[in-house]
């Protein structure tokens, strides 16, 4: 066999190996979904959604976890969105070349790599103990806000960067100030990109478990939270709690709760993709 034939065979072999590798990831994903759905789907009914957690697996529900999640979701968006977008605007529009902006850029890329559990430790000490919010919804949302801030800032910057210079110059030419330009021209054009980033970041936040465990989010909350200073639980923590129990019934509950959690996660990711595509089509500069 000639050398070039051997090389061709090697090339073909690698191609099949690579297709195999690509399938591995997708197969694992499918198996995971199958395992979860086959175990948990029959458990989901209206009682499961509206029941409070209970010591008996068959009577337990995710009502408090769902409400906790809604609270956390709303507060986290309210806190992280203005701050993240504000910081993104500053870095991209105002302090582009100075040293301070450069330092902040390094700092943000560092923060994005800090393990989420470390944010939990920060939240526990700073919001929980120092500011005295305890293990409340407020502490949880503040902690998660800091966690997703780097994601929002980075996506805001990308979105703003994509707005062409000519638009800004036209605005300045009409006599607009810097902020008027940002508010009336740059932000509307970058809106789709910013929203995509926000939704992806929030979808990350609702799946987080570790930082909330560290700040002491209660595993057993027998009531639905009514104010930001109430104790709370969220779906991932409820799942973790059920997975770690030995009785079989709780594993079924965990699988059922995972189906609900994954539905939220996939839905948000789907919405983000749709917004991105629609936005890309609409605005052609």
């Amino acid at each position: 066999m000639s050398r070039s034939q051997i090389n061709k065979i090697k090339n073909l072999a690698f191609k099949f190996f690579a297709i195999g590798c690509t399938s591995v990831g997708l197969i694992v994903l499918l198996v995971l979904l199958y395992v979860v759905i086959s175990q948990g789907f029959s458990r989901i009914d209206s009682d499961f959604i509206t029941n409070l957690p209970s010591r008996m697996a068959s009577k337990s529900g995710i009502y408090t976890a769902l409400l906790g999640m809604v609270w956390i979701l709303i507060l986290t968006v309210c806190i992280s969105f203005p701050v993240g977008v504000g910081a993104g605007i500053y870095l991209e529009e105002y302090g582009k070349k100075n040293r301070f902006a450069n330092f902040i850029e390094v700092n943000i890329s560092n923060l994005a790599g800090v393990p989420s559990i470390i944010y939990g430790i920060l939240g526990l000490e700073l919001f929980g103990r120092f500011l005295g919010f305890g293990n409340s919804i407020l502490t949880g949302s503040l902690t998660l806000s800091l966690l997703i801030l780097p994601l929002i800032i980075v996506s805001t910057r990308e979105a703003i960067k994509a707005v062409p210079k000519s638009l800004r110059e036209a605005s300045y030419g009409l006599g607009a100030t810097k902020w008027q330009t940002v508010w009336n021209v740059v932000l509307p054009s970058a809106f789709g990109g910013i929203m995509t980033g926000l939704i992806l970041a929030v979808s990350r936040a609702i799946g987080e478990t570790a930082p909330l465990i560290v700040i002491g989010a209660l595993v057993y909350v027998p009531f639905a939270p009514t104010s930001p200073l109430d104790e709370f639980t969220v779906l991932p923590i409820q799942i973790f709690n059920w997975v770690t129990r030995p009785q079989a019934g709780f594993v079924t509950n965990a699988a059922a709760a995972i189906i609900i959690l994954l539905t939220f996660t996939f839905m948000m990711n789907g919405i983000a993709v749709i917004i991105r595509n629609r936005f890309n089509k609409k605005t052609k500069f």
Partner: protein
Amino acid sequence: MAKVKEKAIEGFLICCSLITVLTTLGIILVLATETIAFFREVSVIEFFTGTEWTPLFANKKFGILPLVCGTLLTTSIAIAVALPLGLTIAIYLNEYAHQKFTAIVKPLLEILAAVPTVVYGFFALTFVTPFLQSFIPDLSGFNALSAGLVMGVMIIPYISSLSEDALRAVPKSLREAAYGMGSTKLQTAFRVMVPAASSGIVVSVILAISRAIGETMIVAVAAGQEPKFTFNPLTSIETITTYIVQVSMGDVPQNSLEYRTIFSAGMALFIFTFLLNNISFFIKKKFQQRYE
């Protein structure tokens, strides 16, 4: 008046960016103060060289090596899975696959990174471990192996996406030159493209390692809570992150020595990931502009 408003808004925007700096300072300050308090009671030498970690028992020992060992074990398994798979996928998508195929497969693979980690923990504990036990009877119910394998699958997209970006940034002329010399796609990929994109690939691997070290829920659910100074993947171990979760779930009184251990463990974790992130940042800044 308009000028005052402009200045006020700029001030607000600066404050927003300053919050990120304050977050970093806050993390360092919180970890450092509690860690210093911790080292007033525990010897530094014991902490770094001791091979037993039993702060929650009556006979307290504070050697962090077992936790570091557990963390390195699960991380190594995860990287052993994710590096070959992720890099092969990146090469395949960039050199072989049709563009339309890439456009479909890439977002599908990225779903792997979007699934909440507690779900992977559930998967590792209730499916992968029993599945592996049918081949490896010695495998205990909680073990580093299945946690590491599942974590490896989770971080595939971190390596494949970033490596693919790095490969795509290599100028087309290099690839065409290789083809012109009669190289196959395989030779072009491994002798031209991968070396040319090596800095980006290294960055992706470092970030994946950092992600694996900090990963919490998979190991907390599936790898066990027994700090052991071992590299045997078949037994139950404990990682730094799991230990922090374990203490947070328990009834350890605040301001006690046991409570402070989570800060010293957290400090170790923070330093590991901080170093890795900065190395990757340095490589990115230094080497990635060669072709621009």
